[in-house]
């Protein structure tokens, strides 16, 4: 295992320390926990937003804590949902009197741990709502099973719900817009190489030298097919087609695009993928409002990417474009008068 770590069991604690040391003006750690919150949390009179999950998806979720996005992020062990007591600490630390929204990715573990924390918080008198992100179209959406996974599309929920919360909206309003994003966002990923949980020491699975996995989850959960290595354009086409099939966009619709790297894939390749994704959308007459390319929801050092489309209306557009100052998503307060818009 080739990793820059000390003790495999200490990676989460040490990473969080490193984050706070790097960005003390954005985040602070709730003492004795794996919770990072805004430096000035709780913000009075504002709905608090808490997300989190297993670690290994950096910059998710602590990288999105800050003005205009999350108030707190709870880090579990690598690929392991955080425990209810930690989530509860986050809820308490960000509660500014208007209640707290939990943004949960749809995994059994996350659901149960966040739910239990929410129950405990409500017992302490803090109003809590939760939304469940399930954007991964690689998984069949079924009432009888676990349903779809939450992957990179989660970031759009953070951004848009965060922007509305920042404006002073009520818990119900923030919950409503978060659910609206969840309705409109779809993703699909693929992987070229596996990844290794530090404490496990060996890769969680293997992919043949000439193979790739289409539909791979962000914890190495298997996808929908194992195919021969294909050109970037074919991969982009497969991912976009799966997403579009599910979203049924029509010509004239407006979207935001997220080309998300899983950790080991360089930016060069993500832009090559974006080139094709943009062309495919243009072919269908779909308008691209904005494109995000980079690492937002990773899977340790896995090589691969995911493509996320968010269908926009005026409300979502405005909130997506709203300012944010976090570690991994920075957006100016106001569009500068100069030569750039973003």
């Amino acid at each position, binding site marked *: 295992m080739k990793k820059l770590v000390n003790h495999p069991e200490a990676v989460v604690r040490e990473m969080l320390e490193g984050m706070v040391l790097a960005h003390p003006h954005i985040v602070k750690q709730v003492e004795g926990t794996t919770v990072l919150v805004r430096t000035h949390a709780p913000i009075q009179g504002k709905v608090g937003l808490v997300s989190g999950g297993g670690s290994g998806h950096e910059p998710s979720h602590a990288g999105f804590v800050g003005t205009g996005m999350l108030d707190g992020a709870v880090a579990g062990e690598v690929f392991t949902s955080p*425990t209810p007591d930690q989530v509860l600490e986050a809820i308490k630390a960000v509660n500014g009197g208007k209640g707290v929204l939990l943004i949960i990715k749809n995994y059994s*573990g996350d659901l149960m741990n966040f739910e239990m924390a929410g129950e405990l918080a409500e017992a302490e008198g803090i109003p809590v709502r939760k939304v469940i992100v399930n954007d991964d179209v690689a998984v069949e959406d079924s009432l009888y099973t676990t349903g779809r996974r939450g992957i990179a599309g989660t970031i759009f929920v953070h951004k848009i719900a965060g922007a509305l919360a920042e404006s002073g909206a009520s818990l119900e309003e923030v919950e409503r817009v978060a659910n609206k994003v969840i309705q409109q966002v779809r993703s699909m990923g693929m992987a070229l190489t596996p990844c290794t949980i530090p404490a496990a020491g060996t890769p969680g699975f293997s992919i043949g030298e000439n193979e790739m996995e289409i539909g791979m989850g962000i914890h190495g959960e298997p996808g929908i097919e194992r195919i021969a290595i294909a050109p970037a354009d074919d991969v982009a086409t497969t991912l976009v087609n799966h997403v579009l099939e599910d979203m049924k966009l029509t010509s004239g619709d407006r979207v935001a695009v997220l080309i998300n790297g899983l950790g080991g894939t360089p930016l060069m390749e993500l832009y090559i993928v974006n080139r094709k994704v943009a062309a495919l959308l243009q072919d269908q007459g779909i308008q691209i409002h904005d494109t995000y390319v980079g690492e937002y929801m990773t899977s340790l050092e896995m090589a691969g990417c995911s493509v996320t489309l968010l269908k926009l209306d005026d409300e979502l557009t405005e909130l997506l474009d709203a300012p944010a100052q976090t570690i991994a998503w920075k957006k100016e307060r106001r569009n500068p008068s100069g030569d750039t818009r973003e």
Partner: protein
Amino acid sequence: MGIHVNDVKQWLFKTNSRMQEEKAYLTALDQAIGDGDHGINMARGFQEVAIKLEKTAYTDIGSLLQDTGMVLLSKVGGASGPLFGTAFMKAAMVCKGKTEATTADLGAALQEAVNGIKLRGKAEVGSKTMLDVWEPVAQYVQEHAEQLSWSALNDLARLSMEKTKEMEAKKGRAAYLGPRSVGHLDPGSVSTYYLMEALCTTMNRSGEPA
């Protein structure tokens, strides 16, 4: 022959040893159809349980089980943390105030655990989850409370665990695999089997389970 609070302690120490021994195996099982952390999670959780039990003197099985559940809940995480945590905390309520429990108490406690797991995880028997070991074990203990054979119980637990191999997962991370989950043991059922095995070994004072 009652189950003394010290038996319960021994049971959990033994469970911890098993989880440490099988950490890599459980992780490998989870790598096949999950995310490859189940052994790490169980080993971390029961290690903490052992530490807690070592430094605390108990006369009440209820509070021992309650502490166990709380430690698991706050140290395991993932899907197994809240489920094992809930199971122990529910079982604790049945055993509240008891220094020695009967096999009937054990049956009731296991049933409460099962109810808790179902409520929390919304799985049914046959969904290829830990429930596929918990529920038959709970049922067997209740049905045979009068004359419980620990080695028979152990066999039943192992058999139930082995049966998950042929099931298609409907809940948990393996459910994403659909039909491809068939042919693999469910990691949580295997760890649950180790828990039950440790119980039977502890109680079956005549020796190892057959």
